[in-house]
């Protein structure tokens, strides 16, 4: 492979790494914790998947680490209500991803955008509408794809189709990871835009320095933001 082609691959990986780190940084993790998690996702993705039996295997970086992060975020969730919202968002997201697979066009060129981004967008919308929270979005994005994959495996097994299931087998490039990232980005961007449009956030200057004045009692994703800045 030429140097140019190698560079192309390296740049793609670096950009995804950077986006992933910034996304995880939004989830009550410190910058360094986010860096460690994203590194674990990448490195774990290169390791062979762990067989669970019955034709099912799980990839460390593509499924186990994101799932573990979801559990960690659930435990650290601020309120029971937030946890319940995340669970409901995950279930609805799983149903949406499963149904999207069945009902959307079966060829990529028929889709208005890359089908791999569809799942993150669905999860992001559902999680944002339910909880207006980045954490819920990430959990819904990751769990939505995992649950949909599991449901499809059950359907295939019932139909007697010889399909194996490798959860998160694509590692850092798997739809599980991409969906989680995209759901957070969607929640963040849409949330910020809506909050500013509604006047819930305003830019002010305090002692000559830039700051954001939050005027809403409970703005989008504000709960977890408190934790984000504790570094």
């Amino acid at each position: 492979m030429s140097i140019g082609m190698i560079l192309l691959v390296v740049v793609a990986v670096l950009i995804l790494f950077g986006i992933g780190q910034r996304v995880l940084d939004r989830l009550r993790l410190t910058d360094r914790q986010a860096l460690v998690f994203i590194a674990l996702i990448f490195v774990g993705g290169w390791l062979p998947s762990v067989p669970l039996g019955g034709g099912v295997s799980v990839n460390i970086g593509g499924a186990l680490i994101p799932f573990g992060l979801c559990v960690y975020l659930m435990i650290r969730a601020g309120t029971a209500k937030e946890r319940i919202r995340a669970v409901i968002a995950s279930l609805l997201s799983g149903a949406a991803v499963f149904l999207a697979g069945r009902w959307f066009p079966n060829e990529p060129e028929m889709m208005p955008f890359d089908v791999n981004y569809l799942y993150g967008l669905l999860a992001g919308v559902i999680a944002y509408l339910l909880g207006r929270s980045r954490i819920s979005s990430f959990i819904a994005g990751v769990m939505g794809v995992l649950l949909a994959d599991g449901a499809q495996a059950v359907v295939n097994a019932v139909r007697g189709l010889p399909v194996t299931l490798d959860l998160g087998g694509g590692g850092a490039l798997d739809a599980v990871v991409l969906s989680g990232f995209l759901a957070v980005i969607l929640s963040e961007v849409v949330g910020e835009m809506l909050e500013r449009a509604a006047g819930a956030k305003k830019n002010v200057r305090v002692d000559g320095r830039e700051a954001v004045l939050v005027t809403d009692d409970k703005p989008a994703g504000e709960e977890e933001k408190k934790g984000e800045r504790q570094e």
Partner: protein
Amino acid sequence: MRKALWLLLLMALLPGTALADGSETVYTLVDAQGQTITSIAADVDVGDEYIAGDDTLYRVASVDAASARAVLEAVQEEPEYRLASVETVRTDTEKSIGIYVTHSDESYEDGDGTASLETGWAGVHDVASALSEQLEEMGVHVDFDPAVHLPHDAGAYRRSRVTAVNLAEQGEAALIDVHRDGIPDAEEYETEIDGESMTKVRLLVGRSNPNSAANRQFAKKLKAAADSAYPGLIKDIFIGKGNYNQELMPHSILLEFGTHTSNKEEVLRSTRVMADVLNTVLFGSGEDTSEKQPAETKESGEGKPQATAEAGDDGEDVTGTPQGAQVGSDDGAAAATGIAWMVGLAVLGVIAFAVISSGHVKGLPDRLKRFASELTGGWMGKGPKDGGEE
């Protein structure tokens, strides 16, 4: 709430999108005069491109979804598409190719008895397997993953992504996704090479991915090599929307071996010549890769010229001529395009996000500096603190 759950259950139980049973929408691609150029079982969009068998580059100017017709405008007949010589991609990795099948049900009515076979091993698996065997006979190591990605729905490419990533991680020189087309007219795919009747192969490139330029370059090299040694083998190149998991590797390609109405034996026959074309373009003339030699004239076991041995259109005999520099510049240009797109999009995304999250553009450099600092966990120096949120 209960009604919504029942509705969800009902939607899950109902059959989903159509399988590859020949019932897909088939678009007719016509030129400005209304003359039919080709047909394709895929959605066609304005901006899609099509490189015909004669190397004319067309672009889709308009689409009428109701009648499934798309009007093509001839863009040009670039000399670039008429490669004077066959080039080799010349990988430094082991002579190894990854082959997989995304649509695990695609079959051939004339041979399998049906266009869609959901048993876990369909007609298209036989084709992929035959292609693998042909390449193995030529000394190429093939990782053929027959993983099943059923059902043939919108999630098929997501499921096959796992297979493709696993193959890419093994350091393959190229990733081949084997398919068959869904157009009803088998005659469009019929061809005769070296006196043998077989089917043509259509190359499909997804333009919605950062590797698109590199994928396209790879497709053009395959076509040039095939046109040189086996005229009539490559039907055409369609560059449409979607990515087909081709962003995973610069040398990724989707091959359509015939259509569902093609004779399966003829399809299988085309795997031998296609394997030779792949071997030539990826590894040179089939010699030991340790020698890293470019294409040279060589006679195959059947006395037929291999895909590397042809004089160019300009009459120059390229036999044995090193092509490395030319290949390097082609690959470099394609890679540069991909890198420029990715970096450009990433920079735009970061700026857009910084503006959206703060509500204004003032102080953007400071926010970008802090962004870079946070990206590296503070290991690249602390960014300016503004006391606000991002």
